[in-house]
Each structure stands twice: as structure tokens, then as C-alpha cells.
């Protein structure tokens, strides 16, 4: 987080002047970040009420990464996520009702209640799933990218994972294959600085995670993951290049999670201080982007208030939908083991 953000309120031109972003798209990106924030705040409450079971890893604080990245994609691109997948699923345009129902273990969930928090899937959105083994899904992304190239399509694949996954062997195997075979895939490392409770400095010999791609001579860069416009800009450029030249990119998005690793651990404790978390919250991507859009007149406070209200209704409805949805029937236990 050494880099400072370049929010320039007095600039003559807004930062998005050189990006192909309409006001409507800018507003939608803000709305998506806000939806993820409010959705997960509510999910945390429902977890506290035992409506949601198992592990539940919140994305709060990291919204700009997923929203900015996915906003830069086309509908026929592929998205892979890790176990911290609610935010990516929402950013991919998946139905909040289906996501909340999945968290509740209901048959109307996006994975019919068979996946849960860590395994959201939506084939209709090319959302290829959330995966629970750290780094284990990274090679799958090279597979969809391989398929795009094999079939002559110009779809791009993006793959989200944390900085801890970059220590896994299969991450390196995949980067090697992607670079060797020039696959149209973008690896997005969300460096939130902690693999569960282990700081990146205690886990990785190299602290600039994006530099790990240098071993494979792959295009690589670090970006301020608290800045949705920067995320959009770098992913758009990487996606264009992947489409045109079929080449991979590794992007390290420097971000921070404001909540614990999962719902089972406190926000701060043995591995980080309250002061550190509070300091990081000053870089909260949502108010930062709001201020910028307000300053430029793209948004008004009235619009934000209205948006908050609409999102509150969406989240309320999602909880209501999940609550009133049926559980998977007993016989579904044995469905879909085999085709």
C-alpha cells in the first residue's frame, strides 16, 4: 500500500476522460460496489443469526478490484474466483437473490444450495465458480483460455486469487503454461496483505507479488486495488491485448480487507492492529469514488441516497427470498455426482 492514490479533485478533466466510460457505466460501477458492501454487511448479520453456515469470507474493502476488473470485460469472457467470491459474483451480474439463497443453503441458490459461500457458480454469466483450495483453481483459468484459443474465439479469462495463492506450486505451473502457450488469461492477484493471519512479508520471499510473473517473462504490473478506475483501466488494457495478441498478464491489485479472514475470526487481533485497520479504512474505495463522482457532477447526493434505498430493498428482498425458499430435496443429495 505504499502507493498513494491519484484522486485529483481539482483536475480540469476527470480521470476517466481517456477511458471509454459513460456516466451511466460510472454510476453502475459505484452502484455495484455499494451493493456488494451492503449485501455482505447483511450477510454478516445473517451469519450471526446462523442463517448462513460454514465458512463465510467477506470481500468488504476489496470491492474496487472485482468491480473495476469485471466492468472491463465482455459478456462472453470467463471469470474464475476463489473462496472469497460473493463480490465477484455480484459484479458479474449474478442475481442477488440467488447468491443470498446459496448462502442460506437453499434450492433456489445459484448453485442450488450445493456449493455454499465458497462455491458460487453461474454458467449463464460465464461465472466459472468459486473454489476453496487456495490456488487450486488457477490452472482451470488457463483451460478456458486454452479453449478460447483452440476454438478461435476471442474470449478472455480472468482469474482472481489472493497473494497467498501465489506461493502455491500450481500457480507457478499455470503461469508458465500461460506464458509458454500465449493464452488469453489475466491473473488478478488480490493482495490484501494477509493469507488468513499470515502477513505477506512472513509468507513470500518476494513482496512485490506481480514480480513473480517475471520468472515467466509475462507482462505484469501492480495497481492500486482500492481504486476502481485504475482497476478498470489496467484490466481493459490487458483484456484488449489478450484478445488481440493472445497474451497473458499478471496483475497485482493492492487492496485490504476490512473484515476478518472469515466470519470466524475478529477484524483485528493477533496478526494486525486496530490502528492498522483504521488507517487502511481511510482508503475505502467506495467513499473515495463517490467523492470523485460528486465532484464531477456525475452523481448527486440525492442520487446516492436514492441508490442506498434501492440497494437496501434489493438486499432485504434477497434475504426474504432466501428465507422463504425451499431447501434442496433429500433426493438431490444423489443428483449431479455423475452426468
Amino acid at each position, binding site marked *: 500500500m505504499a502507493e498513494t492514490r491519484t484522486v485529483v479533485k481539482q483536475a480540469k478533466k476527470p480521470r476517466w476522460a481517456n477511458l471509454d466510460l459513460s456516466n451511466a457505466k460510472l454510476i453502475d460501477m459505484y452502484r455495484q460496489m455499494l451493493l456488494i458492501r451492503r449485501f455482505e454487511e447483511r450477510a454478516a448479520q445473517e451469519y450471526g443469526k446462523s442463517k448462513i453456515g460454514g465458512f463465510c469470507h467477506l470481500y468488504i474493502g476489496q470491492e474496487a478490484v472485482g468491480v473495476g476488473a469485471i466492468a472491463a470485460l465482455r459478456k462472453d469472457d470467463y471469470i474464475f474466483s476463489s473462496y472469497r467470491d460473493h463480490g465477484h459474483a455480484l459484479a458479474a451480474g449474478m442475481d442477488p437473490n440467488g447468491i443470498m439463497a446459496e448462502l442460506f443453503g437453499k434450492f433456489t441458490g445459484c448453485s442450488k444450495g450445493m456449493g455454499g459461500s465458497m462455491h458460487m*457458480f453461474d454458467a449463464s454469466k460465464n461465472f466459472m465458480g468459486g473454489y476453496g483450495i487456495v490456488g*487450486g483453481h488457477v490452472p482451470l483459468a488457463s*483451460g478456458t483460455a486454452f479453449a478460447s484459443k483452440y476454438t478461435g474465439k476471442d474470449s478472455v479469462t480472468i482469474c482472481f486469487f489472493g497473494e497467498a495463492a501465489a506461493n502455491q506450486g500450481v500457480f507457478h505451473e499455470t503461469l508458465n503454461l500461460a506464458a509458454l502457450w500465449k493464452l488469453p488469461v489475466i491473473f488478478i492477484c488480490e493482495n490484501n496483505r494477509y493469507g488468513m493471519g499470515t502477513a505477506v512479508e512472513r509468507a513470500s520471499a518476494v513482496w512485490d507479488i506481480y514480480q513473480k510473473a517475471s520468472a515467466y517473462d509475462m507482462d505484469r504490473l501492480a495497481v492500486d486495488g482500492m481504486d476502481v478506475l485504475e482497476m478498470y483501466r489496467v484490466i481493459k488494457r490487458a483484456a484488449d491485448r489478450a484478445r488481440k495478441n493472445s497474451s497473458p498478464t499478471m496483475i497485482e491489485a493492492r487492496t485490504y480487507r476490512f473484515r476478518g479472514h472469515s466470519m470466524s475470526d475478529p477484524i483485528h487481533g493477533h496478526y494486525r492492529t486496530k490502528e492498522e485497520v483504521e488507517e487502511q479504512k481511510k482508503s475505502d474505495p467506495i467513499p473515495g469514488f463517490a467523492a470523485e463522482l460528486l465532484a464531477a457532477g456525475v452523481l448527486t447526493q440525492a442520487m446516492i441516497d436514492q441508490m442506498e434505498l434501492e440497494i437496501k430493498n434489493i438486499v432485504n428482498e434477497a434475504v426474504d427470498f432466501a428465507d422463504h425458499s425451499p431447501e434442496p430435496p433429500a433426493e438431490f443429495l444423489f443428483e449431479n455426482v455423475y452426468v
Partner: protein
Amino acid sequence: MAIIQFREALNQAMCEEMDRDPNVFLMGEEVAQYQGAYKVSQGMLQRFGEKRVIDTPITEAGFAGLGIGAAMVGLRPIIEMMTWNFGILAFDQIFNNAAKIRYMSGGQFKVPMVVRGPSGAAHALGAQHSQSIESMVAHVPGLIVIAPSTPADGKGLLKSAIRDDNTVIFMESEMMYGQKGEVPEEEYVIPIGVGDIKRIGKDVTIVAWSKMLHVVLTAADELMKEGIEAEVIDPRTIRPLDEGLILSSVKKTNHCVVVEEAWPFASVGKEVAHRVYSKAFDYLDAPIEHVNGEDVPMPYATNLEKLMLPNVSKVVAAVKKSLNRL
């Protein structure tokens, strides 16, 4: 019928399926330029080109995972493991992703992929190159496991495996690649999950697959000299297991011996025995006998390697014990 080697039969299966479906491709270590470590893919690069016959770096988890992702969006990869001992490096991909994606996505995605290669011991390859993996993979719901014993079965089952929409673990044997057998000239497939009676008999049922099937057939010849008629059942598919074929044979012979190369602890043979005990208990005249590889890593020394593995005399002894004719 043509008489061809096992490796040729597998090669024909892959070539026919690649002719039939452009989404089928072969990927693995040394499959292309080198023509296959065991020459199973001989000539395929020349025939299908480097787009569809692809040499990989030595990165089993990486290319297995790549195959899974490709299968999720409609391709039908054949992933060759030079041996299944190396395939163990890809178990996370196979167990955690391939076997579960359909289930945990609520049926939205499927993974039609074949992962194939030799399993079990060859000669003097030592502890890390001589493992039989069938019970490791057969334990995992979501996987189909096939272990053919003849060129004809190998071809027909590999074609079915490539056409199947599930992930199939296909186990071959270094020792059998050169083995010859009759293979039909015309196109055919053998359905997954259907076993075969390799020898008809009335006194004892012997269940064996892959390389051990041939040990058992030789043992059956020996037993015949003493007037013991063994019925030899080859399940061909380990999962799903053709339980009905095994049970009907045991109900006829009232004796059962299971022969497998794998270690004895929690083996597929124990699963076979469980099915027989629980569904044909009253038909058994004696406890089920097991012949396994010994419960040790494979030694290098040739004399000890022979001791480690099942052989004809061990099978004969097990049958005689079952029949109380020791």
C-alpha cells in the same frame, strides 16, 4: 479380427475419436514429438497436428487443471500421464475440481475429460514408479475408473471414456503395452460399467483386472490340471463396479478370490469382498480370499520385487485355501 498390440489399440481409439470429434485433443508429456513415452500416441502428431497433439512441460497439476477448465467449456481433453505415479501430483486437480465441479455447481458444469496412463509395477522401477492407484481414485465420488486387461477391451472402453461426459480415470500398464490381442476390424465401443467373464468355470470365482487378469488366467490353467475349474471375472470398470456379474458368478461357484496388484489396506478388492459378503453371504462356502501386493513400498531388488507382487503360485494357493484343498 486384427491382432494388434495394446498400445496400438489405444492409439486407434484416440485416433478414431479425434476423427469423430474436433473437440477431442491429446495433451501430455512427450505425447507429440517423442511419439509417446510408451509409443501409445505414435503418429498422432503427424496425423492431427500440433494444435491437437500437445507436448507439455513436466507439470502434471498444471496441465490436468488446464484440461478441466477446457472441458468445462466444451472441449474433450485426453490427458496422458506418463505414469500414474506422476499423476498423483494432479490428484488435487482431479479430486477437488474434476470430481466435484458438477456437484457443487448444482449441475451447471460438467468435466468430460479422460486422464490416462499406466499404473502399477513394471520391472525394477523402485518404490516411486510402481504404484497401483485404483483404490485412491475409486474412493472419490464423481470419478469413473477403468482398468482394462486386453487390447480389445482397452480400445472399446477408451472410446467410451472419451465420449463420456464425466471425468474418467483410465489405467493402463507398462507391462501390457506390447501385449497382443484380437481387436475387431469394425468400429465398436464397450460400455462403461460392464464386466466380462474371461473364463467360464464352476468351482471358484476369481475377480481380477488389468495386469493381474493375466496372472489369474495362467493360474486357472494350473488349477485345471488339478481338476479345479475357475471362473475368471474381469470387471474392466472399477467404478461403477459390475456387481451383478460378480455376484451371479459367486452364487454359482460359492467361492471367491480377489486378486489385485494394489496394497491390501482399504483396497478395491476389499470393496468387492464387501459387496459379496453383504449381498451373497449365504452362497459362500468359505471366506473370501485376497491376493494383493504386499503391504510395503516396492523394493528395487528383483528378487524382492517378485516377492512383493501377486503371482501364479500365490493365486493357486489362495484358491486351494478357499476350496479347502491345501
